[in-house]
């Protein structure tokens, strides 16, 4: 059994598993951090101010100090809470319970070294059993948080319906070099349903520098299985690896500046057969400008090697290389929403000159998170809407089609595609790390060569699990 076949079987199993996970998502329990509504928060802030003024007058009043620490902690003002509790240790340094609370506060702040010092101090003292248990639990969490290795990712399973699953023209008529011909029905637009499984991960290894330089390894995987159009079943896996260097910003208006060179390898199967593999390299730069504008630029070079199959004997004509330039901007417009803008330029150089093309794309999107309107889970819902426009200009006349107005004279034309894509994605969290995702997308591709024009609407529903 070939590796591709094994992957496909796994993909099918995983995709079917998605249906079960979808159901599971509805019934799973949840845990989450407590959130303070805005009105309560304002009240707490007023109370904190009052307690602070009282503390200035009565710094030895323990009740006031504890109340101030509690209110500050509820507000997330962990520094203020810590200053009050550290004073308790000046009053009595042998209080493991205070050490535990201070450790917890610094743990919340992500100051794990200091938190560990306080937890260890609590354990070293003659601490009550409940304090020992809790301090030990936090120490385990610190060990996990401080591990130089981190692994995050997601799995996404579901089903999708596409009105044009085979990305084919709506009309079977093409103006071929041998005259007008009708495409076989399998090459004409037809709807289909597929089940899919996809995922992505990021593994990072902290190199221990103050700037948190790291080695990053990323991976994505995707498999789907059509009920009818199985020759277009797709399976892909891609991995990148490289160091990310965080640089000192050149000015106050620039933050989180980083550069990451990386290597790329991917493997793609189509219709249960090897389709192509890629090796290449990339360079990513990220920066935050004026605190709320995230900029990301990418340059990638990919060498692609295709393999023919019985139902696509010309695939090797796509052998060649891709050069990709991406500029992505994310502008935060409110604490819970952002605008996305992206420009892409892709230069595909191929063995068959009529497959070579240069594509220019513009994307605009908007993402917002908001309170659960149903109140079922209390977790924020997320909506993303977007639109994109892509122009693909092919470099050489395509011999597939005759563009002459006189059907007896063959005049091939350079393919020129234009694509509109509209999409909306709704994520409904079921737990902190499981969400139900529904997406609608419409692709409208027009082309001067009718063979390549199509319109497809897709709707998918899936369950996403983050880890």
């Amino acid at each position, binding site marked *: 059994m070939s590796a591709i076949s094994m992957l496909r079987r796994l993909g099918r199993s995983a995709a079917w598993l998605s249906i079960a996970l979808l159901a599971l998502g509805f019934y799973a329990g949840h*845990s989450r*951090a407590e959130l303070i509504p805005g009105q309560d928060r304002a009240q707490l802030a007023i109370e904190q101010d009052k307690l602070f003024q009282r*503390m200035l007058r009565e*710094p*030895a009043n*323990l*009740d006031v100090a*504890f109340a101030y*620490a*509690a209110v500050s*902690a509820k507000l997330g003002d962990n*520094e203020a809470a*810590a*200053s009050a*509790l*550290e*004073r*308790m240790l*000046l009053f*009595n*340094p*042998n*209080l493991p*319970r*205070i050490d535990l609370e201070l450790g*917890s*506060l610094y743990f919340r702040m*992500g*100051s*794990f070294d*200091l938190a560990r010092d306080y937890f260890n101090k609590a354990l070293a003292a003659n601490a009550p059993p409940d304090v020992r248990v809790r301090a030990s639990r*936090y120490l385990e*969490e610190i060990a996990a948080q401080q591990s130089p290795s981190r692994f995050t990712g*997601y799995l996404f399973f579901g089903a999708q319906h596409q009105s044009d699953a085979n*990305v*084919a023209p709506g009309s079977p008529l093409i103006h*071929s*070099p*041998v*005259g*007008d*011909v009708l*495409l076989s029905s399998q*090459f004409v637009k037809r709807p289909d349903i597929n089940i*899919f499984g996809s995922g992505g991960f*990021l593994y990072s290894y902290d190199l221990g520098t*103050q700037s*948190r330089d790291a080695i990053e390894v990323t991976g994505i995987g*995707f498999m789907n299985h059509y009920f009818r159009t199985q020759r277009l079943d*797709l399976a892909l896996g891609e991995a990148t690896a490289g160091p990310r260097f965080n640089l000192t910003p050149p000015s106050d208006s620039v933050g989180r500046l980083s550069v990451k060179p990386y290597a790329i390898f991917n493997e793609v199967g189509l219709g249960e057969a090897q389709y192509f593999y890629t090796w290449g390299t990339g360079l990513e730069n990220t920066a935050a400008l004026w605190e709320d504008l995230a900029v990301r630029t990418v340059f990638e070079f990919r060498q692609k090697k295709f393999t023919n199959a019985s139902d*696509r004997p*010309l*695939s090797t004509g796509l052998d060649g290389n891709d050069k990709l330039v991406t500029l992505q901007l994310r502008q935060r417009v409110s604490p819970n929403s952002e605008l996305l803008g992206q420009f892409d330029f892709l230069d595909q150089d191929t063995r068959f000159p009529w497959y070579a093309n240069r594509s220019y794309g513009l994307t605009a999107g908007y993402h917002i998170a908001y309170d659960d309107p149903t109140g079922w889970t209390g977790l924020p819902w997320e909506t993303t809407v977007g639109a994109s426009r892509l122009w693909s200009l092919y470099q050489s006349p395509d011999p*597939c*089609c005759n563009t002459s107005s006189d059907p*007896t004279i063959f005049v*091939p034309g350079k393919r020129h595609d234009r694509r509109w894509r509209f999409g909306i994605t709704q994520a409904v969290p079921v737990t902190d790390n499981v969400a139900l995702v529904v997406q609608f997308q419409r692709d409208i*591709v027009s082309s001067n060569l009718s*063979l390549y024009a199509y319109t497809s609407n897709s709707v*998918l529903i899936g369950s996403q699990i983050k880890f």
Partner: protein
Amino acid sequence: MPRVRSSVLRVAAIGTLVVAASTSGAGAQQRVGVNSAVNPEARGVPPGAPPRQLVIGADVVFKEHITTSRQGQTQVLFLDKSAMTVGPNSDVTIDEFAYDPNTGTGKLAMSAAQGVMRFIGGRLSKNENAVTLTTPTGTLAVRGGIFLAAISSLGTDVTFLYGNGLTISNPFGMQILTRPGYMVTISSRNTPPSEPRPAPPGATAALLGQLDGRSGGTGGAQQTPTDQTVVSSGIATTISGNVMANVLTATQAAAQQQPTRSQPPTTNVSAVQTSGNVQSVQTQADPVVVSAAANPTPAGTLLTPAVGTVLNNGATYLAGGGFNQTYNFGTLTGTANITNFDGANYSAALTGSRTIFTGDLSGVANRTGFLAGTFFGPSAAVTGGGFAIQNTSGPPYVVSGAFAGK
């Protein structure tokens, strides 16, 4: 009233500065906070006033010079909610304090000659360069954070504990600490600050030992907290009790501290096909597409896949037209079209075998025809044959021709 610095005057002049004031034994002094805990011996010297023993609840005033003995400790709680804990054998002066409680703006400048201290930022520290501590070897400027400083004749060790950043500078260089648990040493005023490095294990714990009280000390409180006091306060319910919520908060805080927040890559499931050139290969099983790509027809070629001799009411001439054909090798049926042949279009429903096919041509009134052909080449990619057409009534019209297609 002491002479305040010009920057303070400027702020006051625009009417936004509010400085709390109180009366001390040395006369009217500008109050900057209170001594919120004191383990003797700790002394303060307000400007123009004699030294005094610091006691809990006493005001700390502008320009006050605070020193502690070998056992002494104190915590100064500033009006902006900042707190500075001063350890034994320390020497600290409040050089400048200006605070507008309405806007949270102003400045806190301190200097320290020696000792150990921990600063926890309040409202002022949320502003850039609003809080500074000058030591004999350099200056620290913290933003929104917490740091530890140990100053001795060997230099200044600074450990960053939390916040946006801590800038350490002197005339010979500058470093910025941004990672909690990392430290910098400034050995002298004539050498640049060291490169940031992780604080050695046990270093912060040793400093905490000098700051978090001392055995027998009560911090000046008449009623000292006990284990039972802490239990009764219920503080654990608010802070340490919800471990999972704290883990989430810590994870978010750690992510905030990351200079770059990398995320796992994503795929657009609805668009993954288009990124794989699937559209360009999906019709490649079609013989016409394969033939066109494998043997491209030169541009400008005259395409006459259907050619025939026409006898038309006494005239004889050659005509050409298009030809296309579909054929289902499963049902052994198909269609053939001869287009634009002598100004007319004909079609035929085909039947046959896997190699040959026939059909009757129709498409023009009072005219009938016949077509027969065969498939050639690998995958039956080429087709060819002959056809005939004639009028059933009216002027004589007879065609005898051949067709070919790929």
